[in-house]
């Protein structure tokens, strides 16, 4: 397990990771759920579920649906709130050496700032700003589809944040590069993409939407070509590191994102299918490097030959 460390270790905007393979927000709980199944210390970073100031129950009704090579989710940011996170959950997670990144979601710009303030000296490794959740009425994706609003949120968070700030972009936009440039100018230390694509499924037996929330976010292999395209476009346009995700199931999928310009990747839906996905993908990247005589993963980043 440790043999690949040298080749895989990366530093994303100051967050030091043993491997470039992170666990994506909302798909890895608070990390501890997976502790019995894999060695959390062998994961690049754990991005915890979207956190709000107050506890949230999330959406009612059915929350997930399968689609061809993908899934829809409409969890609706269920979470225990930042207080309980800091008091009850983070102490468990901080026993591991893995960097913990907290994904934050506010209903107003001020709430994002307040979340950053409350998390400032907690010992977390980074903040990921979720301006891209398609499953909540207020905030969420609204901030993620307008460059000015996105920049305002990032600016506010940067005022209070003591750790690197990652802006997570929504793919539900006409111009992903404009969004990336806006958050970079506002001070984002890194950019992650993509969040889920807004989708819908209807049950042809009951004539009802499959999801209680009517619409939900599409993730999984189905969206990978869209994600790779957006990572490629954004990585060319910004200077900050890009964290790529969207449908990564295998080491080859991860390499595709690295070649497109991602400095690290995150694994989401794959965790549900294979709980060892994040560590196995890291091992697979190490093998890939070894087979090609490469000594570090950075030798892949952005190397697509156009």
């Amino acid at each position: 397990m440790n043999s690949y460390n040298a080749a895989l270790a990366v530093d994303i905007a100051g967050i030091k990771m043993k491997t470039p393979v992170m666990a994506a927000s909302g798909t890895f709980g608070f990390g501890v759920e997976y502790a019995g199944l894999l060695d959390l210390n062998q994961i690049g970073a754990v991005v915890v579920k979207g956190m709000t100031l107050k506890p949230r129950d999330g959406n009612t009704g059915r929350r997930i649906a399968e689609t061809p090579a993908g899934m829809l989710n409409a969890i609706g940011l269920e979470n225990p709130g930042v207080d309980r996170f800091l008091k009850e959950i983070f102490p468990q997670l901080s026993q591991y050496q893995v960097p913990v990144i907290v994904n934050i979601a506010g209903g107003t710009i001020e709430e994002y700032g307040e979340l950053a303030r409350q998390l400032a000296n907690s010992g977390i490794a980074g903040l990921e700003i979720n301006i891209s959740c398609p499953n909540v009425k207020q905030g969420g994706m609204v901030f993620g589809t307008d460059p000015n609003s996105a920049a305002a949120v990032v600016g506010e968070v940067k005022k209070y944040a003591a750790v690197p700030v990652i802006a997570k972009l929504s793919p539900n936009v006409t111009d992903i590069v404009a969004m990336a440039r806006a958050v970079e100018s506002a001070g984002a230390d890194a950019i992650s993409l993509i969040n889920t694509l807004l989708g819908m499924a209807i049950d042809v037996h009951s004539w009802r939407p499959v999801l209680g929330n009517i619409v939900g976010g599409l993730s999984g292999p189905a969206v990978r070509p869209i994600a790779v395209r957006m990572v490629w476009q954004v990585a060319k346009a910004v200077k900050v590191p890009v964290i790529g995700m969207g449908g990564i199931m295998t080491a080859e999928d991860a390499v595709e994102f690295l070649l497109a310009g991602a400095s690290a990747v995150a694994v989401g839906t794959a965790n549900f299918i294979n709980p060892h996905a994040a560590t196995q993908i890291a091992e697979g990247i190490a093998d890939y490097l070894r087979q090609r005589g490469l000594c570090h993963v950075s030798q892949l980043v952005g190397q697509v030959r156009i």
Partner: protein
Amino acid sequence: MSKQMEQAGVVSHLWLASTIKMLTLRAPVIAQCAEPGQFIHMRVADSYHPLLRRPFSIADADPQAGTISIIYRIVGAGTELLAKVKDGDQVNCLGPLGKAFELNCHKPLLVGGGMGLAPLLFLARRLCPRPVQVISGGRTAAEMVWPALFQPLCENVAITTDDGSVGRRGVTTDLLPKLLTDGQFDRIYACGPRPMLIGVAEITKKFKISCQVSLEEHMACGIGACLACTCSGTDGLRRKICSDGPVFWAEEVLP
């Protein structure tokens, strides 16, 4: 030893009814620590079609033989694929998952509707040699595979069907009041459709008998990470059906 991912070989795969099969797998690690009420989360295809795992209650586990069994109904694409699995094939299982039934009782009554009887079969086995009674509810005679499975383990198997084609016409809860009045039961275990569970919980509350229920919800991770399966407890706190449950005390989650 707790939850594991295990590549399990098919030992046998039998038809019990026209849409119901029993699958027995060699999964020594899961078999070793499985308790009644727990489930396995299974990949039914190596491709992305379907993408997600499927949860099935453990209907039996034999730690000596290293085998576990599930009993399932074919209802959609995933179970249709699963039905094609053959002796010698391998299936990827995650388990045992979830919280098991509490076995601390003397005279239990098991109430199951439809495929909800699967976890109760394993429970009946582990409750032996205590006297076990079961109410087996279902739609129609053709799906009533359960009495034969429960008979060797139980004192008494009462049957209800929606259409009256076997046993009493009606639903399981129709039989409950009389049984509870006469039977001196000290624990009810229930698994089945939600309306049935609500009915059972109401009646047992009236009779002041402790009751455990097993809930179902659509699941992605099966281990408490994705929050696909949560519900609110009666205390207002959230519960994850996959990891805080699927077994709960009735009053914890039902009105």
